[in-house]
């Protein structure tokens, strides 16, 4: 028996969520009294994972796995899970992982709980807390199958050091025919993405028009943040669709979320309230966002944001 985590990497480097799933997997392994095994695909140096508790790292490398292919990646995770005798498989909640996890679950005939936010509250029955109803509630879910797949919500468990003496071994996974083939990728480079961001700066219809986004981007650049927007802003074509956050857009689970000229409709809040700290800047002190925020400024964005930029520049320089 063991716990297997898939520690995802990008260009050989582990993502923050990889360290979070390893930390989480270590906790589950302790609860079950078993070992933690971490799977890496095309990662350069697996020893970083020992720091967070991975006693054994299974390293799979192949050119074929350089781009994500859900079918192929699911075969790798499934084979390693079987070889390791994993009773629990933990995967993060990136866009690719959400694509992968249900396939792995069927391959392993495992019950799958997505959006898990905490270590199991009980291991018999195996019970995990998950987000439900678009962040408006949680469900305590029992996974009844022998093998279990857990999708860990980003920024929910945190990264915890737990150094062990680890070993790494290579694994040759079966290569399968790709029935879905990748023709082309278009990726914005040099920009922080909402999924990866620690800080997200988001703006809404209160900004009046696309020409006013310069200050939003400037604020984001100073903070090393990603930019986002409310749904009407992307529907109106002021900003690209990829920036739309909320219940029907991208979820945000950053450390800091700054909302400028966003009213705080229930569908908007549902998608962003997993963020740790929320700041609102809005002219209307009655805007619902003030009920959801930790810090707020009642004021005109066109005055407040430039001041904030100026003061932050001084703060960063000091």
């Amino acid at each position, binding site marked *: 028996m063991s716990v297997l985590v898939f520690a995802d990497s990008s260009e050989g480097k582990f993502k923050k969520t990889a360290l979070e799933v390893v930390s989480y997997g270590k906790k589950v392994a302790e609860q079950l009294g078993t070992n933690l095994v971490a799977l890496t695909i095309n990662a350069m140096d697996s020893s970083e994972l020992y720091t967070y508790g991975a006693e054994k790292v299974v390293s799979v490398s192949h050119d074929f796995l350089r781009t994500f292919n859900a079918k192929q990646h699911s075969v790798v995770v499934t084979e390693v899970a079987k070889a390791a005798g994993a009773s629990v498989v933990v995967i993060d909640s990136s866009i*690719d992982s959400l694509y992968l996890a249900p396939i792995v679950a069927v391959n392993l005939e495992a019950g799958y709980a997505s959006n898990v936010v905490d270590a199991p509250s009980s291991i018999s029955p195996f019970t995990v807390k998950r987000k439900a109803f678009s962040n408006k509630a949680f469900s305590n879910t029992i996974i009844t199958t022998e093998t279990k797949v857990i999708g860990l919500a980003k920024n929910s468990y945190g990264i915890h050091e737990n150094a062990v003496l680890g070993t790494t071994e290579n694994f040759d996974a079966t290569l399968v025919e790709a029935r879905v083939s990748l023709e082309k990728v278009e990726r914005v480079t040099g920009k922080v993405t909402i999924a990866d961001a620690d800080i997200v700066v988001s703006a809404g219809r209160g900004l009046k028009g696309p020409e006013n986004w310069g200050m939003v981007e400037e604020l984001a650049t100073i903070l090393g943040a990603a930019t986002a927007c409310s749904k009407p802003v992307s529907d109106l074509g002021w900003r690209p669709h990829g920036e739309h956050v909320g219940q029907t857009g991208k979820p945000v689970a950053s450390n800091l979320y700054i909302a400028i000229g966003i009213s705080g409709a229930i569908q908007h809040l549902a998608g962003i309230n997993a963020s740790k700290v929320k700041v609102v800047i809005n002219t209307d002190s009655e805007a619902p966002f003030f009920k959801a925020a930790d810090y707020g400024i009642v004021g005109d964005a066109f005055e407040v944001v430039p001041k904030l930029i100026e003061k932050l520049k001084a703060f960063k320089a000091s």
Partner: protein
Amino acid sequence: MKILVCISHVPDTTSKINFTDNDTNFDTNGVQFVINPYDEFCLTRAMWFKDKQGASVTVVNVGGVETEPTLRKALAIGADNAIRINALATDGFQVAKELATVVKEGKYDVILAGKESADYNGQMVPGMLATLTDYNFVNGCVGVEVEGSAVSITREIDGGNEFLSSGLPIVIGGQKGIVEEKDLRIPNMRGIMMARKKPLQVLEPSGDPVATTIQSFEKPAPKGTVKLVDADNVDELISLLHNEAKVI
């Protein structure tokens, strides 16, 4: 082309979420149920295939009799026929197994499902269904075209898009972008009248065991009140974010 659209029946996005029976059941009192927003995008896309390419469109739901108005709404929007699998949907794996039976029976070419349902947020049914039926599968689609047996798909990834090609049959996990918000179809009077006469078939479930059960629900802890900072004093906000919240 035979299209199947999987329809999840969920509380309207503005619903207040409450629980009954010692927090073990969702309180449906006063809650409006709708077609899951992602499925609405998928259904509109299916209508487009129907109008432009003569596709036939079936909608399917795994649920109790209370979901029939939602299926009727899908028929009113333009689906040709509906299937309800008469089982309580509480676990995504079980739902996917039930849907797989319908898929194998009906030999659909394209299955459209939402990337996530707004109630349990399982994010699993499309991927599980594709794996159980051995269909091709792409998740998070923001564009799909079918020409003969060639499918071209745009998938949203972190910070961009991927352009993929595949053959049929295929399961598409769709989201906004697969059609635009402004193009969403809503039922008109004629559609509603016609929907009454369209077939809605009720099938008994195969009764596969569930893989997960819900023990209880909880609501998030109430939040403290907001700390207001004067608009003329953004330094204080910076100081709070740095020293108190420790996020910058």
